[in-house]
């Protein structure tokens, strides 16, 4: 099975920002409550950055990280802890969906394109070329 996985720095950055702000806020509040002064030291900031980086990476792996594995019959899509597996032949239509800000995904429809019965493969997050991947998938679906 061919496996594709790429770190999405956008989602990783979002996670890092949230954790960093959370850690700093928490530290400032506890600092102020117990000592009545706010400690501002470089070593503390370094620890906070390292801690935020570790936590955000773990959170990103559990929530956002996408891995796509496929062969000529089936595919497996893992997003964080969620894992789904389907056969190519279950799908009839494919499309490229543009959700804005350059994000593109490949949608696989089972029967009707006007029903919300589809699977979305985030080609942008996986670092694939959308049109080339669509060509490849359209061949796999029609086998």
């Amino acid at each position: 099975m061919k496996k594709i996985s790429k770190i999405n720095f956008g989602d990783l950055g979002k996670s890092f920002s949230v954790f960093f702000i959370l850690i700093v806020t928490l530290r400032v509040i506890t600092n102020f409550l117990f000592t009545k002064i706010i400690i501002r030291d470089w070593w503390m900031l370094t620890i906070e950055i390292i801690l935020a980086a570790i936590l955000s990476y773990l959170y990103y792996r559990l929530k956002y990280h996408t891995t796509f594995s496929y062969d000529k019959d089936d595919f497996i899509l893992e997003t964080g802890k969620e894992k789904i597996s389907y056969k190519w032949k279950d799908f009839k239509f494919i499309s490229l969906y543009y959700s804005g800000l350059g994000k593109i995904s490949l949608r696989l429809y089972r029967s009707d394109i006007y029903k919300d019965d589809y699977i979305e493969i985030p080609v942008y997050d996986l670092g694939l070329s959308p049109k080339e991947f669509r060509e490849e998938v359209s061949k796999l679906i029609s086998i």
Partner: protein
Amino acid sequence: MKRVIDLRNFIDNIENQLIKGRGKWIAEFNESFINYSLDNLVFPLVVRGQTRSKGFLLSRLFAYLAMPNYLVSCFVYPSEINSYLKKEKLKILLREISKMMKKNNVKWSWLIIPKEGEFNQRIIKWVEKNDLSNIGVALVNLNTKNILTNNSVIGRKIKTILKF
């Protein structure tokens, strides 16, 4: 030197242009299908979207308050070089598109027929007289880059979408 456009490039260009917002004054297109089959017809390209654009903050609010949320689609069905597109075939295409629109509540559609050559005079006259209010039809001669549309508001809008 005159730039020659082949069919494959033309279809690729339409897809790219619509997705990048060429038709934004009419609708926001955000999904494209290749080799989409409708009954027995296979369209090499279908792009769909809606009249209410997503935008950001103010433009999104304006779109929500001022724009109707119509579903729209654009079909591309090329005519072969050495054969003339018959009126009957065009009627079948329009009938199938109308059926699909009615079934899925699609308000407006465009049918673009590109060809690397001249169209038959009968079909040109028929398209010019056609005044379907919810489907725009365009005959595109890729050699001369001439675009001929049907005589409805939706039909005339095609010229704003198609640019060579």
